[in-house]
């Protein structure tokens, strides 16, 4: 029966079926390890569940409790701070480095590799090293260096005000390598003729930067903004490693959403509440991505 069905098909249909057979593999893969768990998270977010017992439907109670939890608002604000401060700083540094690195030939490869290595290093190992850098005297390098130039010791990770930035620093540093490489690729893709034309017209360096390089790098920049915003909104390893007891302290000053999800899920076994938080994070990421894509599209339309 199958044989006769197959033989009655046109070549076009046969090709389509063959193609779909191959495509089915990644589709099934995605459905089982991506979409199904995502669906499950939405489902569990309306349940009370402790991982072992039966799930109990409780409506929007998880969301209501999250709304009324003052820690959630601190944590949400922390998460946003990581992104809105971390992204511009890291893009500014990586663009500056890429811009100058692109101009030099001598040692170009070595310097680029040096910037790229942190990106390849395990976040946890790196965060541990930074954690030691931030220690008070006589161990912490940063405080030792400050004392050389006569600046009083800083508490860094032990301060409610400084801790978030202290955790952000290694995260920015680790992301630089990737961003620099993408920026350099973008810079190299600008046709030489543009620069030659500008020179003939007598444009200065700043003008070339403003009128040619930055507009030409817009797609690259937008790509990096989206990628690194998502990265910072999902920050976890650095905080988990660098805060005392992995608690996101002191006094929740460094705790991001993902750590809160992790604590609810695997310390308190409140899977429902944790799922509700993942849904919130999902919506936040979705909103940011759509917003940025929309902004990008608008600008192109104007040009």
């Amino acid at each position, binding site marked *: 029966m199958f044989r006769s069905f197959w033989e009655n098909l046109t070549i076009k249909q046969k090709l389509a079926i063959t193609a779909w057979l191959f495509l089915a593999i990644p589709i099934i893969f995605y459905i089982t390890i991506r979409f199904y768990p995502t669906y499950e998270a939405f489902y569990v977010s309306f349940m009370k569940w402790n991982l*072992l*017992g039966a799930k109990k439907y409780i409506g929007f109670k998880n969301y209501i409790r999250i709304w009324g939890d003052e820690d959630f608002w601190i944590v949400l604000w922390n998460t946003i701070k990581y992104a809105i401060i971390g992204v511009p700083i890291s893009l500014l540094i990586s663009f500056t480095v890429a811009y100058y690195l692109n101009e030099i030939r001598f040692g170009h490869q070595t310097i680029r590799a040096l910037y790229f290595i942190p990106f390849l290093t395990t976040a946890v190992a790196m965060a541990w090293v930074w954690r030691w850098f931030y220690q008070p005297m006589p*161990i912490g390098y940063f405080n030792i260096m400050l*004392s050389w130039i006569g600046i009083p010791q800083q508490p860094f990770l032990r301060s409610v005000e400084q801790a978030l930035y202290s955790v952000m620093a290694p995260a920015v540093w680790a992301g630089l390598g990737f961003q620099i490489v993408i920026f350099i690729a973008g810079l190299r893709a600008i046709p030489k003729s543009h620069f030659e034309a500008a020179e003939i017209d007598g444009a200065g360096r700043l003008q070339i930067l403003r009128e040619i390089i930055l507009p030409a790098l817009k797609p690259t920049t937008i790509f990096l903004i989206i990628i690194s915003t998502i990265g910072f909104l999902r920050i976890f390893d650095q905080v988990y490693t660098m805060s005392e007891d992995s608690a996101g302290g002191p006094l929740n000053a460094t705790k991001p959403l993902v750590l809160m999800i992790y604590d609810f899920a695997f*310390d308190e076994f409140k899977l429902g509440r944790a799922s509700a938080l993942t849904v919130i994070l999902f919506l936040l990421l979705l909103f940011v991505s759509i917003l940025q894509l929309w902004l990008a599209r608008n600008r192109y339309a104007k040009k």
Partner: protein
Amino acid sequence: MEEKLKNIKLYLFSIFGSLFIFSSISANAVEIEYWQYEYGARVEAIDKLIANFQSANPDITIKHTYFPYADYRKKVAIAVAAGDGPDLVQLYYGWLNDYRDTGLIQPLPKDVFSHDDIESNFFKMVSAMKADGDYWGLPTAVRSLALFYNNDLLKEAGLSGPPETLDDMVNYAKKLTKRDGSGNLIQEGMAFDGGIGQTHHFFREVLVRHFGGKPFSDDGQKVTYNDAAGAKALKYLTDFEKTHKTTQNGFMNRGQDAFAAGKVGLYIDGSFRISKFKKAEGLNFSISELPGHNGTRYNFSSFWANALSSKAEGAKKDAAAKFLKYLTSDEAMQIWLDTVGELPAKPSVALVDENKQHPLYGPFIRGLDYATATTFVSEKPQRQSIVDAYDMVVLQDVSPEDALAKVVKKEQELFDDFFGN
């Protein structure tokens, strides 16, 4: 060629032969899994106990699994939830309610562990493992707190003998603190790690009681340390960092590391820390009972219990119970004390003169007499309460009263959730 064939035949024969022998053994053999966290001496002790047990019970095999403490709770929970994991598991007594509530463990069978036997032979604090009329686990060893002090630093500061009262301890701490020319701390008089380590226990069960309060109501359902006594206790604790400046959270990583490096005068910890300090080169330390106040002494005791996971059934459950019986025998307790340095869980083994007068274990064992074990609803968030209260006072200049009011409100919500109020 023929030679080769012969070899192959022999080879196959031996494989099938051994398979046959193996299967005939495993027909009535039971293999159970024992899980604990990774800590050199504990692993060594359990290996020793398993070897002893297996030679007495050849039909039972015990697979010993251990991994870093950081992931311990999560791995156990996830493994048991997935129908995998240990038959017999070690858990911190403060996690009992968590574990019971999530169905990770089952009650001990009454026919093997009679309540009369437990209640007349073990230390009173083991009752923390009793809930809903059942015992849910038993310890091999218990712990208490004591004061470690650095003999050389005390001598250098002209102090003889350890501080005997809370007020003494402050004076000692001030005399033992050293700073360099620009005012940076180079030696801690008395080290505390914010609220982590044993500090939160010391606060709850020792300081609060010394200043006339009680951490929790008698029925265990109300958090009661946010009163005048609690505030005094929190002030006493935070003053070491804030006012007397004899300690700095994070100095040389942790108090125990700084003490091991000979940079701390006084430090409070459990008996399990002895082995670390014994290995520290050039460290000359002694141990005394925790200082008293107004003529009384308090202490905190805790323990890791062995419990049957909900996964263990039938023959495995019987085998696990049998091994647990051995783990809580007098012989196992003595092996544990000698290998790990934790105190036997039965007075009959612990409170013998030889142990009570022991220069290192003695102060801990004497402390068991007046020690209380906190009944936790959930240890981690309750520890976080003390850590946060400490940080509010030290980092944000909040008054002890306000700090306690804030954290206790949250802790009470946790209790209300648990007790269903």
